């Protein structure tokens, strides 16, 4: 029912493109317990427990993320436990991912530890995503 009023989780790309002013860095020493919502770039090198919405997300090699991710581009060099909803997903060789990876394109480097299902979805699925599906096995 609330679908009509809620906006898509994934924002349209910014017209002015990516600038440093919109880039957030969460350092190794930082722990966030809560939700992050950005229409810019986000680099996580510390730990985050919560839902993350961003235009572009990078989880660095020391980063740990527990929760769901909604983003246009996702690059994982560290650890992630949760679900990814992203058009472009890159899993680097040091990545450790458990959960589900909803993607349109995906790259997995040799060495990455993936314990996840990787359902493919058309771009329109991500553009119109307003509510995350329930976690159900």
């Amino acid at each position, binding site marked *: 029912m609330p679908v009509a009023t809620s906006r898509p989780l994934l924002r349209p790309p910014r017209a002015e493109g990516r600038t440093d002013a919109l880039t957030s860095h969460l350092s190794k020493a930082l722990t966030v317990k809560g939700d992050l919502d950005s229409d810019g770039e986000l680099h996580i090198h510390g730990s985050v427990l919560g839902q993350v919405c961003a235009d572009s997300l990078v989880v660095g090699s020391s980063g740990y993320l527990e929760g769901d991710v909604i983003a246009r581009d996702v690059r994982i060099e560290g650890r992630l436990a949760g679900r990814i909803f992203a058009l*472009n997903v890159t899993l680097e060789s040091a990545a450790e991912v458990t959960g589900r990876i909803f993607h349109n394109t995906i790259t997995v480097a040799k060495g990455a530890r993936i314990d996840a299902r990787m359902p493919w979805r058309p771009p329109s699925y991500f553009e119109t995503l307003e509510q995350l599906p329930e976690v159900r096995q």
Partner: protein
Amino acid sequence: MSMFNRNEKDPNTGAAVGEKPAEFVPAPVTAAAAAVRPPQPNVQHAPEVAVAKSVGPSVISKALKITGQLESTEDIRIDGEVDGDIHGVSVTVGSGAKVKGSVYGQTVELAGTIEGKIEAKKVILTSTAHMSGDVIHQDIRIESGAYIDGHCRPGTNKVDSKPAPKPN
């Protein structure tokens, strides 16, 4: 004759043929690379930045809104919006930034808005600061133009309880 002619021509054509594959070989590679590339540029520019910034202060940009608690043993700079408590060493709230919650640290510098509490050893309220709530401090500087709605009181600081060195 015709054989010789052929033999004379063959090396040329052979060379031409030999060159062509050399030209053709890289072509599929670039084509393949181009086919693979499109998803990458979006993500490609990230690594240098990621590597360069894995240490150092955390920056919450103006595009980011955090609902929840932040805890860091290093410096934090906030230019965006935080709905929750912040624990850091040196916390800078930039102009345009908005924090709803308590801010704890050794040093807190405010140029934006805080609705909540500041508890820090050293507090700086710049001219653009908008502080709604109490400030518990050991050392405070308030610039002209800063807005404060709340109590400023020197606190028994639990962040660092060692007494200030006495001047002899």
